[in-house]
């Protein structure tokens, strides 16, 4: 079962624009992570935000977390064609296997040059 759900499922923007992706989850969490996946490749960890944090930055990435709404957003500023990828949120809610990292279905981002 998926704990996190990304929105939108797909996003297409022009180079230089900002891209915002959202993640909603169902149960309480200790941390929320964002990962990136280039086509046909493995996932790469981008950023982790803990439940007592509200905002975190890493380069052109900005992540916010609202635990009252059980949601997070990932903002990529000044997007580049190389940002084209799928982006996944992952939460540490309880799954059938216990307290594991559970991934959402992802947002496919296309940045047009």
């Amino acid at each position, binding site marked *: 079962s998926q704990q996190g759900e990304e929105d939108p499922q797909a996003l297409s923007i022009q180079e230089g624009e900002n891209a915002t992706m959202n993640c909603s989850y169902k149960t309480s969490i200790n941390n929320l992570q964002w990962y990136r996946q280039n086509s046909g490749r*493995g*996932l790469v*960890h981008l950023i982790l935000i803990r439940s007592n944090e509200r905002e975190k930055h890493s380069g052109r990435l900005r992540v916010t977390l609202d635990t009252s709404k059980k949601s997070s957003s990932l903002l990529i500023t000044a997007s580049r064609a190389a940002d084209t990828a799928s982006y996944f949120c992952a939460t540490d809610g309880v799954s*059938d296997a216990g307290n594991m*990292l559970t991934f959402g279905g992802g947002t496919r981002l296309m940045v047009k040059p």
Partner: protein
Amino acid sequence: DVKVTQSSRYLVKRTGEKVFLECVQDMDHENMFWYRQDPGLGLRLIYFSYDVKMKEKGDIPEGYSVSREKKERFSLILESASTNQTSMYLCASSFGALLQETQYFGPGTRLLVL
């Protein structure tokens, strides 16, 4: 940098064959994971291991088994491959006692079962 490698990028097997997918990590991580990724279904956890010779079932273990004889190596075994096991298989590893910390992924193995 953490490096997680998988034995094959692409694999084609026939129904009923025994299939081995190997994963190796070089950072002395305690935890290793096998996922499969299918369109519309996201990543689903098959098995994980938190120590040598230890293994735990994930959300979809049916039809799979695993082996962890050495800390750096985690193998996924399809005892008798079926067409519904055609998928992208991703291995990951993580450090420490908590299973929900940052995971480092391999490049994936795309398996086609005919």
